[in-house]
């Protein structure tokens, strides 16, 4: 029993020494917020783009909205063209090459 109490006193002294070493050097009102910051967010995006098409060869000129990834063949088909005009690959994805900035948005502008 005596040994046990002596061990307990030694343990208490050790804890007090650790507490003194850890706390006394910088006595400041402790922070309460966690230091670790976690950043995460998710936003929806409009997976579409607009095409303005004009010209004599176009049956239905005007402004169209297509989903990203549509091919030239599919686009011209929607516009009422019977075949893909020269200079365009029907199987290729529509690119922004002919786009112009209109009201803060890049819109593909085609004159066929």
């Amino acid at each position, binding site marked *: 029993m005596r040994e046990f109490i002596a061990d307990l006193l030694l343990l208490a002294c050790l*804890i007090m020494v650790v507490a003194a070493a850890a706390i006394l050097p910088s006595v400041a009102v402790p922070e309460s917020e966690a230091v670790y*910051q976690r950043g995460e*967010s998710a936003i929806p995006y409009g997976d579409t783009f607009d095409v303005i098409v004009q010209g004599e060869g176009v049956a239905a000129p005007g402004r169209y909205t297509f989903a990203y990834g549509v091919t030239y063949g599919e686009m011209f088909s929607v516009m009422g063209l019977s075949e893909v005009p020269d200079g365009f690959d029907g199987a290729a994805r529509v690119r922004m090459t002919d786009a112009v900035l209109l009201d803060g948005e*890049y819109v593909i502008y085609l004159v066929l």
Partner: protein
Amino acid sequence: MKRKKEERAVRFKRVDDHLLFYGLRVVNFRPFLLFALSFAAGILVFYLCGVYAFLVNLVILPAFVGFIFIFRKKGRRIAGIFLACTAAACVLFSIGSIAFAMRIADFEQAGEVSGDCYIAGVVEEIGRTGDSEVYTLGDLTLVSGETGEIVRTQYRLRMYVYGGGADLSLGMRVITDADVTTYETWSYGRINASAILDKVRYFAFSQADSFLADGQEMPDLFGVVGEHLRDVIFAGMDDSTAALTYAMLTGNSGFMDEDVLQNFRYGGVAHIFAVSGLHIGIVCLLLTYVCKKLKLKLLIRFLIVTAGLVFYAGVCSFSPSSVRALIMCEVMLAMKYKGVQYDRLNSVSIASLAVLAINPVHLFSVGFLLSVSASAGIIVLGGHLSRNLKRIPYMPRRVADALGTAVSAQICTFPVLIDSFGYISAISFVLNLLFIPIISTVYAVLFVGCVLAAIFPFASAVLLFLPEYLLRIAVLPVMMADFKIWLISGFSFGGCALLWYAGIYFLSDKINFRAWVKAIASVLLSAVFVGLMFLRNAFFGYDGFMTVHGYYGSNFVLLHEGDSVVMICLGTPDSEHLEKVFLQQNVTRIDALVAVGTASDANVALPVVLENAAVEKMYVNAESGFIDTFQTVETEEVRGFFDCCGTDMIFADAETLWLNFGGADVLLVNNLTEEEKNLPSCDLLVSAYDGEFLERVERKQEIYFGKADGKMSVYEYGDLQIGRRDGIISVKEAV
């Protein structure tokens, strides 16, 4: 008769007869290990959860109930020990949390200043980087040029002086003015441990001729000795060998050539420049030898060796590795002096607890983590591995010991190295096995030579001749070889490191489970570990992703589409930052480099990128006035839309790039000036500029590279990962 036989059978029952484990218990209780882990856990949980960390005590408190069970079943003394240790663990956990919270609060209380300031302070430390001198000023007075606010603080300022020739000395009181920036507690996704530990709250850049001397204070004794040692070493050796010697003796590698130091890092042997167990152990041996030769009494010997080691650790600025090694050495000496059995695991626990008590922020210091993981790894795993290796027929004992030590240190430092530096050397194990025994001998000769040279500086050239010669031969293979090709990189551990260390401890001989129990548990643990690592590191399930990286002006985006990697540079990247990111991301080739910035930014960016990866092609804005002088890389000046590895891009203005990220509109801005035309709207804005001209840009989400209060930034969260899938852009921290 039958009853007596049964009694005899019970009395002589085998001790190791349990189904699951050998011996009397599963693990030998080590109280100091429990205390050190509790203290560290308190720091870590507060770091993650803030004040809610104290709720963990509610989880531990039910364990007190266990003592009642033990009290009834096993006896009062064991119950009492159980209760005492549980209470001690709770208390130490709480002390760790409180101490950490107070350190952070103390650091943040020191006044925040920015902009042009009048600075007065005392030179407390002198160092060097690759191209500048570094002076650390203490006893600081700052006067803000804008507000006139006066800040007097015991925190320090680090002054980087380019051009050389400032010639400031330790203890000199100086006056200057410079553009001062305040270190934050948290930046770029991690705690600023080195700034908090060094008590450096501010930094500034200056010219050599901008200082006025205003008196001389008595410098720090350890600093004076360190400076004298440096002068003597550089006077007696050629500069490159002197820099190596000074780094090995004091842990200050600031005078070494950066490329040389980096090659040591790539080889996995840069730890010889961190004063730790190897150095302290050799110095202890030398001092003990001298004391024995002088036939000093045991107590006097103990005091002299202690004083010598403490003084040496002071000259090494009491770095965490030197303090850890010092305490372990002292515990061992004290145990020897007292005639008590020395337990190494308890010893490293005491040392770790002492270092964390001195400053809890050490838990986030790479030096401390490497030091403790290596030494604890050698203690926990080294002996077990060595004993198993000795069973191999014809295996020499010394080779088995060396192999066991090298492998265990390698295994246990693996997660820390990968997460801190982004790579680990595959050849490190072999180099450490061959190189460290040689360098240990050379270090002993160096130490003796340098101590004598410090006492007799007039004879330094003679006294340092042999040590210089030996050191040059010893490091020649490391200096000449290129170890970069041996690097393993491209993934990180994060929280899975805890599982890694738990597995190592479980498999060591410190846990007495039977082999079949360990085998089954290892398989299960490995499966869980591999699964978690895969989830952490594989960025799957996204149609395309990009990573945003920044570090004090070195800003760039890596766009991954299919197999191609496009790098979009905003301004000028920093070579070290780039190298680290490329290693972490496993980038060796850039299919296209898009320079968003001025012509001069593009001219600087390409060579920096080429130092770290091959570049197929570079795109620059035709209106920037870029002059193509690069022969090895195809450069295209573009106007309007261009196809960059399947992605449509356009320079919306001088230092602005718009791109279509699989249907999502992304705008990257390096800088905006008043004359800008209308800019397109976007789903995501990524900007190095955070000024008023950005207000007219419509966007759904914004990410900034620099500090931007209340907004998502790389400065706040570290490198970011952006993935797109099913019409959603997800932004989270990069691993």
